[in-house]
């Protein structure tokens, strides 16, 4: 025989909710990095299977190549652009950019500075080759062609 209770269900205690949320918060704080620059170009990275993880993010400098983002297209059109730091630049500015990036690092780390080329998959090689030549001139020889990991094609 069941005992009839005339009381309703007791309310679920929410006392541990802050702890749960704090745990999620700490997970995100540890596993993510701050967004450091705003993207002015749109790109979809090419895919590759043999990609390697970038070893030290602090030693990386980024060069973005791609179409201007939607908000910027009215002003700059849709021809591919190079973004260094927070503005559109031409290949001539890469020398200064690399010099500035190198100055930010410790002397011991300068040799292992890596330049990450984030270029849109539909970019033509012409602009990429120009950037590469400019990087050789700037003596920034370690580069990484950013690509997303795929399982094969």
């Amino acid at each position: 025989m069941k005992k009839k209770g005339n009381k309703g269900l007791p309310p679920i205690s929410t006392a541990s909710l802050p702890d749960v949320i704090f745990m999620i918060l700490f997970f995100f704080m540890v596993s993510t990095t701050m967004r450091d620059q705003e993207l002015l170009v749109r790109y979809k990275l090419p895919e590759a299977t043999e990609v390697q993880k970038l070893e030290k993010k602090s030693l990386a400098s980024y060069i973005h190549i791609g179409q201007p983002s939607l908000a910027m297209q009215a002003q700059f059109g849709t021809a591919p652009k190079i973004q260094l730091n927070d503005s559109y630049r031409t290949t001539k500015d890469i020398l200064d950019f690399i010099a500035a990036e190198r100055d930010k690092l410790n002397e011991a780390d300068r040799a292992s500075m890596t330049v990450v080329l984030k270029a849109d998959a539909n970019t033509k090689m012409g602009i990429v080759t120009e950037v590469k030549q400019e990087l050789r001139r700037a003596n920034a020889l370690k580069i990484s062609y950013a690509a997303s990991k795929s399982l094969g094609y």
Partner: protein
Amino acid sequence: MPVDKRKVQEINAGSMADIAFLLLIFFLVATTMNVDTGLVRVLPPMPPENQKQEDIKVKERNLFLVLVSGSGNIMVGTPNNQEFTDLHQVKDRTKEFILNPMDDENLPEKTAKEIELADGSKWVYPESQGVVSLQTTLETDYQTYIMVQNELTRAFNEVRDEVAMQKFGKKFSELEKEDRDAVSKAVPLKISEAEPRNIKKQ
């Protein structure tokens, strides 16, 4: 002064969850989680401009050209003998070129290289003298270029795996750092992206 004998009132912690939610949302918006992955390469240094450029002499049999045209067609072969190939064959052709298993005269020569191992012993490996030269036109798509680079990397990785398997009985990625360096020395990643200017005929 009147002394409050009652218990200290508890602070209401009901809004703690809201505060934590706010912080959580801030971090969700302000951070990124993507891991940067990519194909790592080392560019050749720029020769000094005032110096007369020396011709890089590479024997024909030691050179493996991979040309990618603007429309995405791929040609591979020695400087005098090239043929169209499919992307899927690039890897096997490259592996054959690096390994030269039959010591073919038209494939690269090998020189014995002495590599010091972690335990102090010497390991003599016939290192291939071959150089893979990747050339593109200005019109080639970056995606195609990366796909070809990927195939070349895969060829080198597979050769390294095989060598590591023979020597150490493990895959390349499972080796200790010292052994991995030794295998990397035995099979260096020789992919040239700047075209050798003149090809010396022999």
